[in-house]
Protein backbone atom coordinates (compact mmCIF):
# COMPACT_ATOMS: atom_id res chain seq x y z
CA UNK A 1 0.00 0.00 0.00
CA UNK A 2 1.25 3.47 -0.81
CA UNK A 3 1.66 5.74 2.14
CA UNK A 4 2.60 8.77 0.08
CA UNK A 5 1.07 9.19 -3.35
CA UNK A 6 1.81 12.26 -5.46
CA UNK A 7 0.07 12.39 -8.82
CA UNK A 8 1.35 14.93 -11.39
CA UNK A 9 1.92 17.59 -8.75
CA UNK A 10 3.06 21.08 -9.72
CA UNK A 11 3.94 23.95 -7.47
CA UNK A 12 4.50 27.53 -8.40
CA UNK A 13 5.66 29.93 -5.70
CA UNK A 14 4.21 33.40 -5.45
CA UNK A 15 0.65 34.50 -4.91
CA UNK A 16 -0.44 35.46 -8.42
CA UNK A 17 1.11 32.48 -10.20
CA UNK A 18 4.03 34.41 -11.69
CA UNK A 19 6.62 33.05 -9.24
CA UNK A 20 9.15 30.29 -9.76
CA UNK A 21 7.81 26.99 -11.01
CA UNK A 22 9.50 24.64 -8.56
CA UNK A 23 7.74 21.36 -9.30
CA UNK A 24 6.24 20.31 -12.61
CA UNK A 25 4.22 17.12 -12.96
CA UNK A 26 5.97 15.25 -10.17
CA UNK A 27 4.68 11.75 -9.64
CA UNK A 28 5.95 9.90 -6.61
CA UNK A 29 4.82 6.84 -4.71
CA UNK A 30 6.27 5.66 -1.42
CA UNK A 31 5.10 2.43 0.23
CA UNK A 32 4.33 2.22 3.94
CA UNK A 33 7.52 1.68 5.91
CA UNK A 34 9.72 2.33 2.88
CA UNK A 35 12.90 4.38 3.04
CA UNK A 36 13.17 6.58 -0.03
CA UNK A 37 15.96 9.00 -0.88
CA UNK A 38 15.50 11.88 -3.31
CA UNK A 39 18.62 13.20 -5.02
CA UNK A 40 19.09 15.81 -7.68
CA UNK A 41 21.07 18.83 -8.82
CA UNK A 42 20.97 21.76 -6.45
CA UNK A 43 17.93 23.97 -6.70
CA UNK A 44 15.82 21.24 -8.29
CA UNK A 45 12.95 21.58 -5.84
CA UNK A 46 13.84 18.82 -3.40
CA UNK A 47 12.95 20.93 -0.39
CA UNK A 48 9.78 22.07 -2.14
CA UNK A 49 8.83 18.44 -2.52
CA UNK A 50 9.07 18.06 1.27
CA UNK A 51 6.79 21.04 1.79
CA UNK A 52 4.20 19.70 -0.60
CA UNK A 53 4.16 16.23 0.93
CA UNK A 54 3.76 17.60 4.46
CA UNK A 55 1.08 20.04 3.37
CA UNK A 56 3.06 23.09 4.46
CA UNK A 57 2.67 24.48 0.94
CA UNK A 58 -0.45 23.66 -1.04
CA UNK A 59 0.21 22.16 -4.48
CA UNK A 60 -0.75 24.36 -7.41
CA UNK A 61 -1.93 21.36 -9.43
CA UNK A 62 -2.25 17.60 -9.06
CA UNK A 63 -3.17 15.53 -6.02
CA UNK A 64 -1.20 14.72 -2.89
CA UNK A 65 -2.44 11.74 -0.91
CA UNK A 66 -0.80 10.75 2.36
CA UNK A 67 -2.03 7.84 4.44
CA UNK A 68 -5.07 7.44 2.23
CA UNK A 69 -6.24 11.02 2.58
CA UNK A 70 -5.84 14.00 0.31
CA UNK A 71 -3.56 16.62 1.85
CA UNK A 72 -5.20 20.04 2.16
CA UNK A 73 -3.37 21.54 5.13
CA UNK A 74 -0.32 20.79 7.29
CA UNK A 75 -0.26 17.16 8.40
CA UNK A 76 0.06 16.49 12.08
CA UNK A 77 1.80 13.15 11.97
CA UNK A 78 5.11 14.11 10.47
CA UNK A 79 8.52 14.26 12.06
CA UNK A 80 10.90 16.66 10.36
CA UNK A 81 14.62 17.35 10.54
CA UNK A 82 16.58 19.89 8.54
CA UNK A 83 20.17 20.70 7.70
CA UNK A 84 20.03 23.24 10.51
CA UNK A 85 19.25 21.43 13.79
CA UNK A 86 16.83 24.25 14.83
CA UNK A 87 16.93 23.32 18.50
CA UNK A 88 15.53 25.88 20.91
CA UNK A 89 18.44 27.43 22.83
CA UNK A 90 16.40 28.06 25.98
CA UNK A 91 15.50 24.39 26.39
CA UNK A 92 17.72 21.55 27.51
CA UNK A 93 18.35 18.71 25.09
CA UNK A 94 15.74 16.61 26.85
CA UNK A 95 13.12 19.37 26.73
CA UNK A 96 13.93 20.00 23.08
CA UNK A 97 13.35 16.37 22.23
CA UNK A 98 10.08 16.39 24.16
CA UNK A 99 8.73 19.46 22.34
CA UNK A 100 6.57 17.49 19.87
CA UNK A 101 4.87 15.72 22.77
CA UNK A 102 3.54 19.07 23.96
CA UNK A 103 1.82 19.61 20.62
CA UNK A 104 0.79 16.31 19.07
CA UNK A 105 -2.38 14.68 20.32
CA UNK A 106 -2.92 12.39 22.13
CA UNK A 107 0.46 12.94 23.82
CA UNK A 108 -0.17 16.59 24.71
CA UNK A 109 -3.09 15.71 26.99
CA UNK A 110 -1.31 12.74 28.55
CA UNK A 111 2.04 14.44 29.04
CA UNK A 112 1.34 15.88 32.45
CA UNK A 113 0.01 12.66 33.95
CA UNK A 114 2.52 10.28 32.41
CA UNK A 115 5.50 12.57 32.41
CA UNK A 116 7.85 9.98 33.91
CA UNK A 117 7.08 7.45 31.19
CA UNK A 118 7.61 10.06 28.46
CA UNK A 119 10.87 11.26 29.98
CA UNK A 120 12.10 7.68 30.08
CA UNK A 121 11.17 7.30 26.43
CA UNK A 122 13.03 10.46 25.48
CA UNK A 123 16.09 9.41 27.46
CA UNK A 124 16.07 6.00 25.80
CA UNK A 125 15.89 7.62 22.38
CA UNK A 126 18.78 9.95 23.22
CA UNK A 127 20.75 6.95 24.47
CA UNK A 128 20.14 5.22 21.15
CA UNK A 129 21.92 8.01 19.25
CA UNK A 130 24.74 8.24 21.79
CA UNK A 131 23.61 11.31 23.71
CA UNK A 132 23.35 9.62 27.10
CA UNK A 133 24.53 12.04 29.78
CA UNK A 134 23.79 15.15 27.71
CA UNK A 135 20.07 15.35 28.50
CA UNK A 136 20.44 18.40 30.73
CA UNK A 137 22.89 20.20 28.46
CA UNK A 138 21.72 23.13 26.40
CA UNK A 139 22.02 22.95 22.61
CA UNK A 140 24.82 25.51 22.52
CA UNK A 141 26.86 23.26 24.79
CA UNK A 142 26.70 20.49 22.19
CA UNK A 143 28.77 20.04 19.04
CA UNK A 144 27.09 20.28 15.64
CA UNK A 145 26.86 16.50 15.27
CA UNK A 146 25.33 16.14 18.72
CA UNK A 147 22.78 18.83 17.96
CA UNK A 148 21.81 17.03 14.79
CA UNK A 149 21.37 13.78 16.73
CA UNK A 150 19.08 15.57 19.16
CA UNK A 151 17.18 17.01 16.21
CA UNK A 152 16.66 13.47 14.85
CA UNK A 153 15.36 12.38 18.24
CA UNK A 154 12.95 15.28 18.24
CA UNK A 155 11.68 14.20 14.83
CA UNK A 156 11.05 10.67 16.13
CA UNK A 157 9.86 11.07 19.72
CA UNK A 158 6.14 11.01 18.89
CA UNK A 159 6.48 7.88 16.71
CA UNK A 160 5.55 9.64 13.48
CA UNK A 161 4.39 7.42 10.66
CA UNK A 162 6.17 9.72 8.21
CA UNK A 163 9.67 11.06 8.66
CA UNK A 164 10.84 13.88 6.39
CA UNK A 165 14.56 14.58 6.38
CA UNK A 166 15.83 17.58 4.43
CA UNK A 167 19.60 17.17 4.06
CA UNK A 168 19.93 16.51 7.78
CA UNK A 169 23.62 15.60 7.62
CA UNK A 170 24.78 18.09 4.98
CA UNK A 171 26.53 20.42 7.42
CA UNK A 172 28.48 17.68 9.22
CA UNK A 173 31.96 16.30 8.62
CA UNK A 174 32.24 12.93 6.92
CA UNK A 175 32.96 10.86 10.02
CA UNK A 176 30.07 12.29 12.00
CA UNK A 177 27.86 11.91 8.98
CA UNK A 178 28.66 8.21 8.59
CA UNK A 179 28.08 7.66 12.29
CA UNK A 180 24.67 9.25 12.00
CA UNK A 181 23.80 7.14 8.97
CA UNK A 182 24.17 4.13 11.21
CA UNK A 183 22.17 5.78 13.99
CA UNK A 184 19.39 6.64 11.54
CA UNK A 185 19.37 3.12 10.11
CA UNK A 186 19.03 1.68 13.61
CA UNK A 187 16.17 4.04 14.43
CA UNK A 188 14.42 3.19 11.20
CA UNK A 189 14.86 -0.56 11.63
CA UNK A 190 13.49 -0.33 15.18
CA UNK A 191 10.34 1.61 14.28
CA UNK A 192 9.85 1.37 10.53
CA UNK A 193 8.37 4.75 9.77
CA UNK A 194 8.00 5.78 6.14
CA UNK A 195 11.01 7.96 5.38
CA UNK A 196 11.65 10.48 2.64
CA UNK A 197 15.25 11.68 2.76
CA UNK A 198 16.32 14.59 0.60
CA UNK A 199 20.06 14.66 0.07
CA UNK A 200 22.75 15.60 -2.41
CA UNK A 201 25.10 12.91 -1.13
CA UNK A 202 24.77 9.87 -3.39
CA UNK A 203 26.68 7.56 -1.04
CA UNK A 204 24.31 8.54 1.70
CA UNK A 205 21.28 7.87 -0.49
CA UNK A 206 22.54 4.45 -1.57
CA UNK A 207 23.57 3.44 1.92
CA UNK A 208 20.31 4.38 3.61
CA UNK A 209 17.50 4.01 1.12
CA UNK A 210 15.46 1.15 -0.29
CA UNK A 211 14.89 3.22 -3.38
CA UNK A 212 16.64 6.30 -4.75
CA UNK A 213 14.73 8.81 -6.87
CA UNK A 214 16.51 11.27 -9.14
CA UNK A 215 14.97 14.66 -9.71
CA UNK A 216 15.51 16.79 -12.80
CA UNK A 217 16.68 20.37 -12.68
CA UNK A 218 14.03 22.96 -12.01
CA UNK A 219 11.11 22.64 -12.52
CA UNK A 220 11.66 19.37 -10.71
CA UNK A 221 10.13 16.02 -11.45
CA UNK A 222 11.29 12.46 -10.95
CA UNK A 223 13.33 11.36 -13.98
CA UNK A 224 14.82 8.11 -12.76
CA UNK A 225 14.62 5.68 -9.91
CA UNK A 226 16.84 2.90 -8.70
CA UNK A 227 16.07 0.24 -6.12
CA UNK A 228 18.87 -0.61 -3.70
CA UNK A 229 18.57 -4.21 -2.60
CA UNK A 230 21.54 -4.47 -0.26
CA UNK A 231 20.64 -6.54 2.82
CA UNK A 232 19.97 -4.84 6.17
CA UNK A 233 21.33 -3.87 8.56
CA UNK A 234 23.97 -2.39 6.27
CA UNK A 235 27.51 -1.79 7.45
CA UNK A 236 29.56 1.23 6.41
CA UNK A 237 31.92 -0.98 4.40
CA UNK A 238 29.03 -1.57 2.04
CA UNK A 239 29.48 1.90 0.59
CA UNK A 240 32.93 0.91 -0.67
CA UNK A 241 31.82 -2.38 -2.24
CA UNK A 242 31.52 -2.61 -6.04
CA UNK A 243 27.74 -3.16 -6.05
CA UNK A 244 26.96 0.05 -4.23
CA UNK A 245 29.69 1.98 -6.04
CA UNK A 246 28.06 0.90 -9.29
CA UNK A 247 24.72 2.28 -8.11
CA UNK A 248 26.36 5.55 -7.08
CA UNK A 249 27.92 5.84 -10.56
CA UNK A 250 24.64 5.12 -12.24
CA UNK A 251 22.85 7.80 -10.20
CA UNK A 252 25.65 10.21 -10.91
CA UNK A 253 25.11 9.83 -14.61
CA UNK A 254 21.40 10.50 -14.24
CA UNK A 255 22.16 13.69 -12.37
CA UNK A 256 24.73 14.83 -14.89
CA UNK A 257 22.16 14.26 -17.61
CA UNK A 258 19.58 16.22 -15.63
CA UNK A 259 22.02 19.10 -15.18
CA UNK A 260 23.04 19.04 -18.83
CA UNK A 261 19.43 19.21 -20.00
CA UNK A 262 18.89 22.24 -17.78
CA UNK A 263 21.92 24.09 -19.09
Amino acid at each position, binding site marked *: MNFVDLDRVSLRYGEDGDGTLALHGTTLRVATGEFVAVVGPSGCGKSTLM*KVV*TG*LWPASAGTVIVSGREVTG*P*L*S*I*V*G*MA*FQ*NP*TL*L*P*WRTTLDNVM*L*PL*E*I*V*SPHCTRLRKERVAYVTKARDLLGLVGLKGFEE*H*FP*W*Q*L*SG*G*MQQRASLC*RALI*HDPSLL*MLDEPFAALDMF*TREELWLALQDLWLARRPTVILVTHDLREAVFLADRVLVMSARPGRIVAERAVTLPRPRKLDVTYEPTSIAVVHELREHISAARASAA
Partner: protein
Amino acid sequence: MAAAETLDLPPVRPHRRALGRKALRRLLPWLVIVAIFVVWELVVRAFAIEQFILPAPSAIFAAGWEWRWPILDNSWQTLMTTVVGFGFAVVFGLLAGIAIGSSTLVYDGFYPALVGFNSIPKVAVIPILVIWFGIGTVPAIITAFLISFFPILVNVAAGIATVEPELKDVLRALGAKRWQVIQKVGLPRSMPYFFASLKVAITFAFVGSIVAETVAANKGIGNLMLVASSRFEVPLAFAGLLMTSIMGIAMYLVCSLLERRTTGWATRGIETAAPRA
Protein backbone atom coordinates in the same frame (compact mmCIF):
# COMPACT_ATOMS: atom_id res chain seq x y z
CA MET B 1 41.05 10.76 28.58
CA ALA B 2 42.96 8.12 30.52
CA ALA B 3 45.74 8.17 27.98
CA ALA B 4 46.06 11.93 28.26
CA GLU B 5 46.40 11.81 32.04
CA THR B 6 49.35 9.46 31.96
CA LEU B 7 51.23 11.78 29.63
CA ASP B 8 53.86 14.01 31.15
CA LEU B 9 52.10 17.33 30.84
CA PRO B 10 53.18 20.62 32.40
CA PRO B 11 50.96 21.67 35.34
CA VAL B 12 48.01 23.91 34.58
CA ARG B 13 48.85 27.52 35.33
CA PRO B 14 46.13 29.60 37.02
CA HIS B 15 45.10 32.52 34.88
CA ARG B 16 46.40 35.42 36.97
CA ARG B 17 45.76 38.21 34.52
CA ALA B 18 42.17 37.12 33.99
CA LEU B 19 41.53 37.42 37.73
CA GLY B 20 42.98 40.91 37.83
CA ARG B 21 40.89 41.90 34.85
CA LYS B 22 37.72 40.66 36.50
CA ALA B 23 38.32 42.79 39.59
CA LEU B 24 39.08 45.77 37.38
CA ARG B 25 35.87 45.27 35.45
CA ARG B 26 33.87 45.35 38.67
CA LEU B 27 35.65 48.41 39.98
CA LEU B 28 35.87 50.41 36.78
CA PRO B 29 32.31 51.86 36.74
CA TRP B 30 32.87 53.31 40.22
CA LEU B 31 36.27 54.66 39.28
CA VAL B 32 34.80 56.36 36.21
CA ILE B 33 32.06 58.01 38.28
CA VAL B 34 34.51 59.21 40.94
CA ALA B 35 36.86 60.48 38.22
CA ILE B 36 34.06 62.49 36.60
CA PHE B 37 33.26 64.18 39.91
CA VAL B 38 36.90 64.87 40.64
CA VAL B 39 37.55 66.44 37.23
CA TRP B 40 34.33 68.44 37.53
CA GLU B 41 35.31 69.74 40.98
CA LEU B 42 38.79 70.69 39.77
CA VAL B 43 37.48 72.46 36.68
CA VAL B 44 34.97 74.48 38.69
CA ARG B 45 37.64 75.51 41.20
CA ALA B 46 40.39 76.16 38.68
CA PHE B 47 38.24 78.49 36.56
CA ALA B 48 36.32 79.88 39.55
CA ILE B 49 32.97 79.20 37.90
CA GLU B 50 30.03 80.86 39.64
CA GLN B 51 27.76 78.51 41.57
CA PHE B 52 24.60 79.56 39.71
CA ILE B 53 26.22 78.60 36.40
CA LEU B 54 27.86 75.30 37.25
CA PRO B 55 27.97 74.23 40.89
CA ALA B 56 30.85 72.03 42.06
CA PRO B 57 30.00 68.46 43.11
CA SER B 58 30.80 69.35 46.70
CA ALA B 59 28.16 72.10 46.60
CA ILE B 60 25.68 69.73 44.95
CA PHE B 61 26.20 67.10 47.63
CA ALA B 62 25.87 69.73 50.33
CA ALA B 63 22.61 71.00 48.83
CA GLY B 64 21.41 67.43 48.44
CA TRP B 65 22.04 66.76 52.10
CA GLU B 66 20.46 70.02 53.22
CA TRP B 67 17.29 69.36 51.21
CA ARG B 68 17.31 65.59 51.67
CA TRP B 69 13.70 65.23 52.83
CA PRO B 70 12.05 67.24 50.03
CA ILE B 71 14.36 65.52 47.54
CA LEU B 72 13.44 62.06 48.80
CA ASP B 73 9.76 62.96 48.89
CA ASN B 74 9.80 64.24 45.32
CA SER B 75 11.99 61.36 44.12
CA TRP B 76 9.47 58.92 45.49
CA GLN B 77 6.74 60.68 43.53
CA THR B 78 8.81 60.53 40.34
CA LEU B 79 9.78 56.92 40.88
CA MET B 80 6.15 55.97 41.37
CA THR B 81 4.82 57.73 38.30
CA THR B 82 7.68 56.33 36.24
CA VAL B 83 7.21 52.77 37.41
CA VAL B 84 3.43 52.88 36.93
CA GLY B 85 3.77 54.33 33.42
CA PHE B 86 6.53 51.87 32.63
CA GLY B 87 4.40 49.00 33.94
CA PHE B 88 1.58 49.93 31.56
CA ALA B 89 4.11 50.21 28.75
CA VAL B 90 5.43 46.71 29.50
CA VAL B 91 1.97 45.15 29.51
CA PHE B 92 0.66 46.93 26.42
CA GLY B 93 3.97 46.83 24.59
CA LEU B 94 4.19 43.08 25.10
CA LEU B 95 0.60 42.45 24.00
CA ALA B 96 0.77 44.77 21.00
CA GLY B 97 4.20 43.40 20.09
CA ILE B 98 2.85 39.86 20.05
CA ALA B 99 -0.13 40.91 17.94
CA ILE B 100 1.98 42.86 15.46
CA GLY B 101 4.85 40.38 15.30
CA SER B 102 2.71 37.32 14.75
CA SER B 103 0.62 38.57 11.86
CA THR B 104 1.92 40.26 8.72
CA LEU B 105 -1.58 41.62 8.17
CA VAL B 106 -1.68 43.38 11.55
CA TYR B 107 1.93 44.46 11.03
CA ASP B 108 1.28 46.04 7.65
CA GLY B 109 -1.93 47.60 8.89
CA PHE B 110 -0.84 49.13 12.15
CA TYR B 111 2.86 49.81 11.82
CA PRO B 112 2.70 53.03 9.75
CA ALA B 113 0.15 54.51 12.15
CA LEU B 114 2.32 53.55 15.12
CA VAL B 115 5.42 55.11 13.58
CA GLY B 116 3.49 58.28 12.91
CA PHE B 117 2.22 58.29 16.45
CA ASN B 118 5.69 57.73 17.85
CA SER B 119 7.12 60.63 15.82
CA ILE B 120 5.00 63.11 17.79
CA PRO B 121 7.21 64.77 20.43
CA LYS B 122 5.71 63.71 23.73
CA VAL B 123 6.31 67.16 25.25
CA ALA B 124 3.82 68.51 22.75
CA VAL B 125 1.16 66.13 24.04
CA ILE B 126 1.47 67.16 27.68
CA PRO B 127 -0.64 70.35 27.41
CA ILE B 128 -3.41 68.27 25.86
CA LEU B 129 -3.12 65.74 28.66
CA VAL B 130 -3.43 68.59 31.13
CA ILE B 131 -6.65 69.70 29.48
CA TRP B 132 -7.97 66.15 29.80
CA PHE B 133 -6.71 65.13 33.20
CA GLY B 134 -5.62 68.33 34.94
CA ILE B 135 -2.24 69.02 36.51
CA GLY B 136 -0.66 66.27 38.60
CA THR B 137 0.28 62.61 38.55
CA VAL B 138 -1.88 61.36 35.69
CA PRO B 139 -0.23 63.31 32.83
CA ALA B 140 3.20 62.25 34.13
CA ILE B 141 2.19 58.58 34.17
CA ILE B 142 0.73 58.83 30.68
CA THR B 143 3.80 60.59 29.32
CA ALA B 144 6.08 57.95 30.84
CA PHE B 145 3.87 55.29 29.26
CA LEU B 146 3.75 56.93 25.83
CA ILE B 147 7.48 57.40 25.60
CA SER B 148 8.48 53.89 26.76
CA PHE B 149 5.75 51.91 25.03
CA PHE B 150 7.14 51.99 21.51
CA PRO B 151 10.62 50.50 22.00
CA ILE B 152 9.08 47.56 23.84
CA LEU B 153 6.52 46.97 21.12
CA VAL B 154 9.06 47.16 18.30
CA ASN B 155 11.46 44.74 19.97
CA VAL B 156 8.88 42.13 20.90
CA ALA B 157 7.40 42.32 17.41
CA ALA B 158 10.86 41.90 15.85
CA GLY B 159 11.62 38.90 18.06
CA ILE B 160 8.42 37.14 17.11
CA ALA B 161 8.48 38.07 13.44
CA THR B 162 11.99 36.71 12.93
CA VAL B 163 11.36 33.13 14.07
CA GLU B 164 13.28 30.80 11.72
CA PRO B 165 10.92 29.42 9.05
CA GLU B 166 12.32 25.89 9.53
CA LEU B 167 11.39 26.01 13.19
CA LYS B 168 7.89 27.11 12.26
CA ASP B 169 7.73 24.22 9.78
CA VAL B 170 8.82 21.72 12.42
CA LEU B 171 5.98 22.81 14.67
CA ARG B 172 3.39 23.21 11.93
CA ALA B 173 4.20 19.74 10.60
CA LEU B 174 3.28 18.48 14.04
CA GLY B 175 -0.09 20.15 13.72
CA ALA B 176 0.73 23.11 15.96
CA LYS B 177 -1.79 25.93 15.96
CA ARG B 178 -0.68 29.49 15.45
CA TRP B 179 -0.79 30.42 19.11
CA GLN B 180 1.18 27.29 19.97
CA VAL B 181 3.98 28.41 17.66
CA ILE B 182 3.94 31.81 19.38
CA GLN B 183 3.81 30.28 22.84
CA LYS B 184 6.51 27.64 22.31
CA VAL B 185 8.89 29.54 20.06
CA GLY B 186 7.94 33.14 19.34
CA LEU B 187 7.59 34.37 22.89
CA PRO B 188 10.66 32.72 24.44
CA ARG B 189 12.67 33.79 21.42
CA SER B 190 11.61 37.41 21.74
CA MET B 191 12.48 37.58 25.45
CA PRO B 192 16.08 38.75 24.91
CA TYR B 193 14.76 41.51 22.64
CA PHE B 194 12.10 42.31 25.21
CA PHE B 195 14.55 42.70 28.08
CA ALA B 196 16.97 44.68 25.95
CA SER B 197 14.10 47.05 25.20
CA LEU B 198 13.20 47.29 28.89
CA LYS B 199 16.61 48.75 29.62
CA VAL B 200 16.03 51.44 27.02
CA ALA B 201 12.38 51.95 27.95
CA ILE B 202 12.95 52.47 31.68
CA THR B 203 15.34 55.36 31.06
CA PHE B 204 12.87 56.80 28.54
CA ALA B 205 10.11 56.51 31.12
CA PHE B 206 12.13 58.67 33.53
CA VAL B 207 12.56 61.28 30.81
CA GLY B 208 8.82 61.21 30.20
CA SER B 209 7.69 61.59 33.77
CA ILE B 210 10.25 64.28 34.60
CA VAL B 211 9.42 66.34 31.54
CA ALA B 212 5.74 66.09 32.41
CA GLU B 213 6.47 67.11 36.01
CA THR B 214 8.40 70.13 34.78
CA VAL B 215 5.51 71.27 32.61
CA ALA B 216 2.46 70.18 34.51
CA ALA B 217 2.82 69.06 38.10
CA ASN B 218 3.25 70.37 41.59
CA LYS B 219 5.31 67.47 42.80
CA GLY B 220 8.16 65.28 41.64
CA ILE B 221 11.82 65.75 40.79
CA GLY B 222 10.97 67.67 37.62
CA ASN B 223 8.90 70.12 39.58
CA LEU B 224 11.56 70.41 42.29
CA MET B 225 14.23 71.24 39.70
CA LEU B 226 11.97 73.80 38.06
CA VAL B 227 11.30 75.52 41.38
CA ALA B 228 14.97 75.32 42.40
CA SER B 229 16.27 76.88 39.18
CA SER B 230 13.62 79.62 39.25
CA ARG B 231 15.00 80.51 42.69
CA PHE B 232 18.56 80.27 41.41
CA GLU B 233 19.21 77.33 43.77
CA VAL B 234 21.28 75.73 41.04
CA PRO B 235 23.07 73.21 43.34
CA LEU B 236 19.64 71.92 44.40
CA ALA B 237 18.56 71.57 40.75
CA PHE B 238 21.74 69.58 40.10
CA ALA B 239 21.06 67.46 43.19
CA GLY B 240 17.70 66.64 41.61
CA LEU B 241 19.47 65.64 38.38
CA LEU B 242 21.84 63.45 40.33
CA MET B 243 18.94 61.75 42.09
CA THR B 244 17.29 61.07 38.72
CA SER B 245 20.49 59.44 37.48
CA ILE B 246 20.67 57.28 40.56
CA MET B 247 17.08 56.14 40.14
CA GLY B 248 17.68 55.52 36.45
CA ILE B 249 20.72 53.37 37.14
CA ALA B 250 18.89 51.48 39.88
CA MET B 251 15.95 50.63 37.63
CA TYR B 252 18.31 49.73 34.80
CA LEU B 253 20.07 47.29 37.11
CA VAL B 254 16.76 45.76 38.12
CA CYS B 255 15.94 45.22 34.44
CA SER B 256 19.31 43.74 33.57
CA LEU B 257 19.17 41.45 36.62
CA LEU B 258 15.78 40.22 35.42
CA GLU B 259 17.28 39.78 31.97
CA ARG B 260 20.17 37.69 33.20
CA ARG B 261 17.87 35.58 35.33
CA THR B 262 15.41 34.76 32.58
CA THR B 263 17.37 34.79 29.33
CA GLY B 264 20.84 33.69 30.35
CA TRP B 265 20.85 31.39 27.32
CA ALA B 266 20.97 34.36 24.99
CA THR B 267 23.97 36.04 26.62
CA ARG B 268 26.00 32.93 27.26
CA GLY B 269 29.67 33.68 27.62
CA ILE B 270 32.78 31.87 26.57
CA GLU B 271 33.14 30.51 30.13
CA THR B 272 30.67 27.78 29.25
CA ALA B 273 32.82 26.20 26.57
CA ALA B 274 31.25 23.41 24.55
CA PRO B 275 32.33 19.82 25.18
CA ARG B 276 33.58 17.87 22.19
CA ALA B 277 31.54 15.07 20.68
